[in-house]
């Protein structure tokens, strides 16, 4: 059930890593080499080394929002930096589509970063000496793209994140939320395929954070990027993610859809996070419906992928059962009624495990 390919289904794998390690400390590489690629805790401790990332294996599929969630010190930031090679992994393999990223020479890596990757940072990392337009155009500028073209493209991005009119402002004159919008626009300016977001909303106030999460979902519906999103906030993770990887002490504990994380946490650590998540928020209609079409003729229809939280008012108001249709195939796949919905809302229903 950990199988990494579980739900993301048919989309091809964009970024994959296998057995990725990052070990900090003196002579880390030599120790790793001697231990043959699988150092255990005792060896690391004896040499005074710290493993920030231990044996991480992931497949990130094209077009999905992949969230890496963990508390501070869990190694999530180091992992994402290994995936972009901002930090050089100590061991393991890393492939972008079919290319071996770890073998890429500096020049090729620069090219990949210039055209295929974008990154948003926790503290925005805006250039204080440039205005909004200059910041967003920067990644294009260093590629040597002419002023008209890059500024045109930058203006589009600024409009996309809803900051038109602010082009001439300096970052210092913007609120935190606005600054991060600039960060987002800038990371999208090169139209990257792979979009890294490193705790992008952690430095923002709760209300703004929510607004920015909606903004991200909106952008993703338009752009269909492959997103790797880092957060320490479990609610944020299940709100945004197609799939979540949960990290603890450098290790990936579980990779799954939010729904499955809540319904069947891999261990107590994951369960600790999911305990307070209302099931209705993550459980979809398809996991609690009856798998036969018993709804009366003329009953209203709902989508199989919808969350219980979203359909509950309709089901409860409807008096009869509702028909469930799979939007992918267009076929009717089952029926859902008051009982199933109430069970989820009451926290007693848990799908068909």
């Amino acid at each position, binding site marked *: 059930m950990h199988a990494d390919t579980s739900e993301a289904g048919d989309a091809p794998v964009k970024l994959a890593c296998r057995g990725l390690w990052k070990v900090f400390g003196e002579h880390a590489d030599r120790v790793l080499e001697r231990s043959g690629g699988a150092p255990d805790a005792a060896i690391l401790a004896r040499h005074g080394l710290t493993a920030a990332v231990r044996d991480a294996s992931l497949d990130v599929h094209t077009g999905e929002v992949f969230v890496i969630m963990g508390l501070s010190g869990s190694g999530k930031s180091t992992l994402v930096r290994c995936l972009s090679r901002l930090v050089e992994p100590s061991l393991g393999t890393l492939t972008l589509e079919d290319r071996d990223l770890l073998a890429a020479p500096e020049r090729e890596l620069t090219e990949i970063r210039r055209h295929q990757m974008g990154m948003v940072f926790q503290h925005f990392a805006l250039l204080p000496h440039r205005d909004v337009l200059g910041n967003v155009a920067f990644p294009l500028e*260093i590629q040597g793209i002419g002023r008209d073209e890059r500024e045109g493209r930058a203006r589009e991005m600024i409009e996309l994140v809803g900051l038109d009119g602010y082009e001439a402002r300096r970052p210092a004159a913007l609120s935190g939320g606005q600054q991060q919008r600039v960060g987002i626009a800038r990371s999208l300016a090169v139209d990257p395929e792979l979009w890294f977001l490193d705790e992008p909303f952690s430095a923002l106030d709760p209300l703004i954070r929510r607004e920015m999460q909606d903004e991200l979902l909106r952008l993703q519906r338009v752009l269909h990027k492959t997103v790797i999103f880092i957060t320490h906030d479990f609610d944020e993770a299940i709100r945004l993610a197609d799939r979540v990887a949960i990290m603890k002490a450098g290790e990936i504990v579980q990779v799954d859809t939010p729904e499955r994380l809540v319904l069947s946490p891999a261990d107590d650590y994951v369960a600790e996070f999911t305990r307070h998540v209302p099931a209705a928020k993550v459980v979809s209609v398809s996991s609690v419906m009856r798998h036969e079409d018993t709804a009366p003729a003329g009953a209203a229809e709902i989508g199989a992928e919808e969350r219980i939280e979203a359909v509950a008012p309709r089901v409860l108001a409807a008096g009869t059962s509702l028909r469930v249709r799979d939007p992918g195939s267009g076929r009717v796949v089952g029926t859902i009624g008051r009982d199933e919905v109430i069970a989820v809302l009451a926290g007693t229903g848990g799908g068909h495990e």
Partner: protein
Amino acid sequence: MNEAVAERTGAGGGLSRTAVTVAAVVLALFVADRLAGWLPWVGVYPGSWELPVSDWVSGVMEWLLQDAAIGGIGFRSVVRSLATLLSVPLEAGTLVLAKGFELPFGGGMTLPALSWLGVAAALVLFGARVGGRRLATLLFFTVAYLAFFGQWQSAMTTIASILVAVPVGLVLGLLLGLAAYRHPAFERVLRPVLDLMQTVPIFAYLVPVLVLFGFGPVAAVVATVIYAMPPMARVTIVALRGVSEEILEFARMSGCTRRQLTWRVLVPAARQGLMVGVNQVIMLSLNMVIIASMIGAGGLGYDVLRALRRLQIGDGLEAGVAITLIAIATERLGRALTDGTRSRARLPRRHFGLLLAAVVALPTIAGVFWSPLAGVPDALTVSTAEYWGRLVAWVNTELYGPLNGAKSVLLVYVLIPFKRALVALPWTGVVAALAVLSHRLGGWRLAAGVTALALFIAVTGNWEKAMITVYLCGISVAIAALIGIPLGIWSAASDRVHRVTTTVVDTLQTLPSFVYLIPVVMLFQVGDFSAMVAIVLYALAPAVRYTDHGIRGVPAETIEAARMCGCTRGQIRWRVQLPLALPEIMLGLNQTIMMALSMLVITALVGTRDLGQEVYIALTRADIGAGLVAGLCVAFIAMIADRLIGAWVARRRAALGLA
């Protein structure tokens, strides 16, 4: 109850630690003093033990000049080509700003220097644009003073050399800082060198510069750069370190090349911090103006120096005021430029540039036909020199009694006894006492370092002069602290006082050190007493500033807690604010000592008998070895004070949990 007992014994423990240290220091001095009765070498360092370090240094210098070569190219010719390189912009600047340019072809055709009226008007306009009406007013008075007090020509010569020295210093400092930022190994080498460059008195390296580059404006620029550059390198390292890791990661993620990362991200992102360095370089370069004129800078500095040598107080004062005004105006201009809160200008930048060019060019061209526009007409200039001369004469006759009385009392009852006592101390005792003290404060490593520095002074035969230096510096620092710390406390207590002291302290710090000598000599003639007064004035600023800052830095919450405990205002001041601010106050004192030592060397001009005099004499004789060694001794005194105070502050901060 138990806690109270524990508290008291705790305090007692601290006290006894201090008491032990003091007792050990006194014991070391006492034992050495007794011993000196039987063994003379314990008391006075024997001349026959002196190592001829200065001869060795001179020898190395000789070798550098005569024989040294890098890859077949003689060191000497490297220096010469460097000099030529510098002389081109320097001469161009002087010609354009001050002298006019004689065309090489066509007999007698000259391009005129820029018209004074044009330059003045352009400066005021520029000031108005970047700093509004206040800055424009300041610039107006500055240029008016320069023009109508007959200082224009000299001022332009000075500005021309500053215009060369500052950019060179900035670029050099930036590159060194960048290299140190990139390569930690290089930083480990650079740091002590910068330390030394900043503590060795300026006079000491004027000598080698003089020997290498010869007397003239180029040597002056080189000396200025050496003096003004170190803070830029330091500030650059700090500023670059301050750029957040995320911004660097962003740059890499955008696919920046190494060069793009440096020049488009790293350096611009650090620009706020770098501007501090720019300001420092400008200030120090102006500070150097008078000293640089000793090796041929010309301009205002030379005017001051000449006046001071001839005791023409009025002329010196007028030129000194001119330098001061330039320094203040430049500082304010720089601050306005970097504030970022630029007033929203109506004209776009390019049009404004054209306007400035026109304002300068039109009077310059017109000046060819109507000479009052080319140079300030004599009829317009005034001089107050005569009045100052009369004032000095009046002071000398009318106020001689009281002034001289005060001076004599201080000399006879404080200065001279203190000096005698210090000189009489056995050198071995002092070294031992320093060793004990530094060991108590900072352990074996500090003790070893401090002892080595002190021994160097003895071994090179400079012990007695060093003691005189310590005496003059010590008295001046004590007086500066007695005046400055209460002022700082006062200014921390009241916002109004704070505003006044900040302005005064800022202004005092922009004054070139030489300027302090003029009024002092005017009132007290030459000698130790004048030197002391000048040093106190010059070194006062940090004592005030750090005290004020330290007390204001005590957290408001702590004060509130004290008030809620029912402390009176006096109790808050003495039991809460001052103990917590003490480490910061000590840092101010440290700074005061550093400034006092740097001033000390300059006061050699008014006839002291310390290491400063030694350096100054070496300068006049172009004796590289003696100058450098005496300079190093001054630097080592500064370093000993700095390390000891630094160790104490670190200890105290750790105890207060401020580290």
